[in-house]
């Protein structure tokens, strides 16, 4: 059997030895049971989430005088066409710039799941944010806003593909002690 030497061995006659022995059979049994328990309770599929913000304004305060704030630029992602995406930067009702991105659905099947990705759109949105995006500093608590325009029949998997592309643009964000890379945009839906 294996032994554990805890020092001070070889005491004078009659003294109990400080060496103690570990019985290997229950030790291996314990390891096996632990492995079996951890394997049974293991979670192999990893779930995660994509965030979206409904941008609900707070209730109006008639007692407080409203400050005139210049509206921020928002990126509108138009995905109604099957040929192209249209990226429109708007400031209030004014169109600042428009870019067309040819629509190339990178579709593949993984089991029963259909994975749809738009790498060209993701790259273009990232480039657009780097030139037009307003909230880039790690200490800035606000995020640039992306508004998704889709028709009513579009499958959900395509919407997730576009949201995933929008979230590829990352910016540093101070979360207490350190700056983390987080998505540069907040996504919301257009109601029309």
């Amino acid at each position, binding site marked *: 059997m294996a032994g554990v030497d805890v020092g001070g061995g070889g005491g004078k006659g009659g003294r109990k030895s400080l060496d103690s022995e570990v019985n290997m059979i229950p030790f291996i049994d314990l390891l096996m049971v632990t492995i079996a328990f951890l394997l049974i309770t*293991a979670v192999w599929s990893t*779930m995660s989430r994509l965030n979206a913000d*409904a941008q609900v304004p707070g209730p109006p305060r008639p007692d407080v005088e409203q400050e005139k704030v210049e509206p921020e630029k928002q990126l509108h992602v138009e995905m109604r066409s099957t040929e192209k995406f249209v990226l429109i930067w708007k400031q209030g009702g004014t169109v600042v710039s428009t870019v067309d991105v040819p629509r190339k659905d990178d579709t593949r099947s993984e089991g029963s799941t259909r994975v749809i990705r738009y790498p060209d759109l993701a790259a273009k949105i990232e480039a657009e944010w780097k030139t037009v995006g307003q909230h880039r500093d790690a200490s800035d608590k606000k995020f640039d806003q992306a508004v998704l325009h889709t028709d*009513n029949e579009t499958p959900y998997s395509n*919407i997730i593909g576009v949201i995933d592309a929008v979230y590829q643009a990352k910016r540093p964000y101070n979360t207490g002690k350190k700056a983390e890379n987080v998505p540069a945009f907040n996504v919301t839906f257009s109601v029309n």
Partner: protein
Amino acid sequence: MPIHEPGRRLMHNVGLKFVEKKVTGHGNRPTNAGLSLTSMIDFLIVVVVFLLMTFSASGETPITKGVNLPKAENTLDMIDAPMVSITGSQILVDGSAAGNTRAIEDSKRLQRVDELFNLLKAKREQWKQLHPGKDFPGVVVLQIDQDVQAVVVKSVFQTAAFAGFPNVSFMVNSLPKTKHE
């Protein structure tokens, strides 16, 4: 019960020479292989450590039957929040029925789902009673089947916002992260 003297035993009293020959391998390679205890224990400990590191005490997020989640790469960690599931035909809030998607798909226009609205509003009130004086986070997780139409997604999204849950998260399966230049 009387105690008998033990009878003849295999290998001891009963020869079974051919088995003994096979096992010990006279001249041939023995069929018994030795196993190093130290290596085996090292291996077991490494496996235990790996499994402990990947162990999640919170357990698996339950997925509603009939929901096939899409996959995405740029995701955030899951949070604990009320779960709205949308299958091909049903809307459920934490497993309780909260509407039908067929009516929304047939009307082809954005609309408020009243049952969902009432259930979510009740959940909000319940949270406020349980946490007096605290700000309501307004977070809801949507578990939507990949083939559900956008009109249903937008209707549920809007209903959740009206019910006091403006912070909506879409539950997805994680794709491995790729490096972007």
